[in-house]
C-alpha cells in the first residue's frame, strides 16, 4: 500500500499524485517506472516516475484517465492508499552525449521530463524542453518544467500558447538553428505517434534520439514477455531492457499495433463501468 500525500488536477483528465513510497524514492533514477494495481481484481499498469524525493520519501506520478484502471486511480484522493505499488522498474535513462539536450513531452508525457531534465541540467548540459498540447489549458506543469531547464518551448495546435503547431515543427526549427539551436541529443516521452514523429524528424539529421516506450505489462520483471518490442531487429522486453530505446531503431508499427491489442475489450469494459463510475460508487 502506498499513501497518496498530494493530488493535483493538471487538466480535467490528468492528475498528479505525490505518493509515499520511501524505498522506491530512494532507489529511483530518471527514466524508471512503477507498476500499480488500484483495487482487488484490478490490472497492473506501468506508470513513469515523473519525480522523486528521497528525503521526503515520495514519488510523483501523473495519470491520464484513458481506461478503467486510470479512472479508478484518478478517483483516489489525498489520504487514500494505492493498493499495490512496486518499483523502480526498468533501466535508468542514459544520455549518450553531452551538450544541448532537448526533452520533448507530449500530453501527460511531459511530466516524465521533470526529474530527467533536472538531472541533465545539474550535470552541466544546456537543456531545452519542448512540450505540446491541443490548447493552452492542456499544457501541464509549465512552471515546474521551466525551473528544470534553460529554455521551455510551448506548442499548441490552436496557437493559444507558444508556437501554433506540433512539437516536431518547433524541433525542426531548432535543428535549423532557431532559438536555442540544434540539439546534440533528444529524449521524447509521450503518445506513440508523437514519439514516432520526433524519430522521423531527427533521423535525417542523425541526432541521437531516445524514446520511452509504454507497452502493456503485467509483472514488469521480465517474467511474462508481454511488453516485447523490436529494436534494431532484436526482440527486447521493455520492462527490463527498456523502457527507453534508440528511437531510430524502434519498430513503431509493431509497437503501436501491440499497444492496441485490447482496445475493443477496454472500450466494452469502459462502457460497462461508465454507469457505475468510481466517483458514483464513492458517493
Amino acid at each position, binding site marked *: 500500500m502506498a499513501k497518496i500525500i498530494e493530488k493535483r488536477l493538471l487538466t480535467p483528465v490528468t492528475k498528479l499524485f505525490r505518493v509515499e513510497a520511501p524505498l522506491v524514492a530512494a532507489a529511483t533514477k530518471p527514466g524508471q517506472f512503477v507498476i500499480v494495481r488500484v483495487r482487488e481484481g484490478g490490472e497492473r499498469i506501468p506508470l513513469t516516475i515523473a519525480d522523486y524525493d528521497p528525503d521526503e520519501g515520495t514519488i510523483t506520478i501523473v495519470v491520464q484517465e484513458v481506461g478503467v484502471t486510470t479512472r479508478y486511480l484518478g478517483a483516489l484522493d489525498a489520504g487514500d492508499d494505492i493498493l499495490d505499488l*512496486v518499483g523502480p522498474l526498468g533501466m535508468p535513462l542514459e544520455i549518450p552525449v553531452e551538450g544541448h539536450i532537448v526533452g520533448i513531452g507530449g500530453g501527460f508525457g511531459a511530466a516524465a521530463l521533470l526529474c530527467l531534465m533536472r538531472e541533465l541540467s545539474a550535470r552541466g548540459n544546456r537543456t531545452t524542453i519542448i512540450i505540446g498540447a491541443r490548447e493552452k489549458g492542456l499544457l501541464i506543469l509549465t512552471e515546474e518544467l521551466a525551473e528544470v531547464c534553460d529554455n521551455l518551448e510551448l506548442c499548441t495546435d490552436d496557437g493559444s500558447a507558444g508556437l501554433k503547431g506540433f512539437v516536431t515543427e518547433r524541433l525542426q526549427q531548432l535543428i535549423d538553428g532557431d532559438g536555442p539551436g540544434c540539439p546534440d541529443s533528444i529524449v521524447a516521452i509521450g503518445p506513440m505517434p508523437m514519439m514516432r514523429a520526433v524519430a522521423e524528424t531527427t533521423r535525417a539529421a542523425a541526432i541521437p534520439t531516445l524514446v520511452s516506450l509504454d507497452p502493456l505489462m503485467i509483472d514488469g520483471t521480465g517474467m511474462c514477455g508481454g511488453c516485447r518490442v523490436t529494436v534494431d531487429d532484436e526482440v527486447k522486453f521493455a520492462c527490463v531492457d527498456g523502457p527507453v530505446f534508440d528511437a531510430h531503431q524502434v519498430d513503431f508499427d509493431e509497437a503501436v499495433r501491440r499497444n492496441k491489442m485490447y482496445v475493443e475489450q477496454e472500450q466494452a469494459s469502459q462502457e460497462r463501468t461508465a454507469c457505475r463510475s468510481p466517483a458514483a460508487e464513492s458517493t
Partner: protein
Amino acid sequence: MPLKRADKTPMPERDAGLRAHDFIEVNEGYDFSRAAFEAERCLRCQDPVCIEGCPVTIPIPDFIHEIAAGNMPGAAKILRSANPLPAICGRVCPQETQCEQLCHLGTQFIPVAIGYLERFVADWERDQPLGSAPAQPSNADKVAIIGSGPAGLVCAGELARLGHPVTIFEALHATGGVLRYGIPEFRLPKDILDWEIGLLEHLGVEIVRNVIIGKTITLDALFDEMGYSAVFIGTGAGLPKFLGIPGENLNGVYSANEFLTRINLMHADQFPEMDTPMKIGKRVAVIGAGNTAMDTVRTALRVGAEEGIIVYRRSENEMTARVEEHHHAVDEGVEFKWLTNPIEIVGDDEGWVTGLKCMKMELGEPDESGRARPVPIDGSEFVIPVDVVVLSIGNNPNPLLVKTTAGLKTNEKGCLVVGENTAETSRQRVYAGGDAVTGAATVILAAGAGKRAAAAIHEDLSASLQSTISVGH
C-alpha cells in the same frame, strides 16, 4: 507376507466432459478407506530406495505405515518434518520419475501410489485445528529470502523452525511465485497454497509483497542497512524463451508465462468483472509438451477455446510432461500434433494471428540430450488455422538480480553457480536454490534445494555465532 495387489488404488477424478469447462480440481483425492487400502500395498522394504528418489528424503514407508495403522497424526508429523509443502507436492510432483520409479513393487506391478498418499495425509492435516503458535525465534540471526516460490517458501519454513527470524521479499502483489501464477487452479487449488503459506506465517515468517530485491532494495542493502545475516535467492526461472521464428510478436501470441499469469494471477478469464483483458482464442495452439504446455492447453479449453492443440517437434515418447497430465489432457479432448515443428506464425493485415505454419518431422539419431533428434521432412509445410499461439518451450533464469548485484557468478545459461553441498553462491552468506540455480525444473527439486540451503545457512550462522562467542571469551 500377504500377496500384493498388482494395481494401485485408482484416484477418483471428476468427469472429463464436466471438468474441461471449469477450474475445480480434477483429482478428488482418496478417502480413508482408499488410502488405507493403498497403504497396505507398501512392502516396507529393508532398503527403502523410494526415499532416494525423493528430493526432500521423506521417510516414505514410515508415513505410509502410519496410514495403514490408522494413525493419521503420526503420518502427518512424519511427512511434515521432511516436507514443508506436502499438500502441494502431493499434487504436482512427477512421482513416476522419482519415488515411485524406484519402488520395489514396481519391478513386477504398479508402484505404490506414494503421491496420492502424500496428498491424502496433507489434506487430512488441513482439516485439523491449527496448533498454538510456536515459541518466538530464539536465534538472533535474521535471514532474507528473495522470492516466495517453492524454493523460498521451503527455505523460509525450515529456517523459521530452526528459530531464525525470516523475511520473504516477493516482487508481485501475491505470494507463491509459480505456484500462484503458473500452476492452474484445477491442478493446485489456490486455497491449498494459501493454507500452506498461512502455516509459514503461523510459524512467524514475515512476507513483504511488492518489493523487488535488486530494484527496490539492493542485495547489499539487505546486509548493510537492514541487518540480515544471510540471504537466500529463490528467484526462479521466470524469463520466457521464444523460438525466434517470424510472427512471434503478432497480436494473439503469448508466452505460457503471460497466458497463465493473465488467468491464474490476474483472472483475465473473468474480464470484465476483473480488469485485466486477454485474447480468448477459439483455436489455440500451444508449442511444447512439458507440464506447463499441458497446463496451458487445458486452461485454454476451460476459458472457452473450442480446440486446444499441442504442437511438438518430437514424438510422444520424448514428451516431458507427467504421465498423469498428458492423460488428463487426452481425456479432456486436447489434440496432439507430434513431430510437428513450428516455423512461422502467420497473421492478417491487422496483425492478429491466423495460423501456425509447421513442418512435419521424423526421428533421427539421438542428440546431445540423448533423445532422438527430430529431422524436418522436405516439402511438408502446412498451416494449422489458429487464432492464439502460446509458446511453452521453457524459461531462462531471471537476470534482474544478477544484473544489479556485483559478484554473483552465473554459468553460460545464466543460472547462479552454487557450491554443491553448501548452496552458497560466489558471494559469502548469499545462498541460492531452485530454478534460479538449475534452470526450469520441478517444484519438488526447488523445495529440496530450499531445504538443503536452510540447513547450510543455519550451520554457517551457528558456526559464526560460535566463533564470535569464543573470540569474545
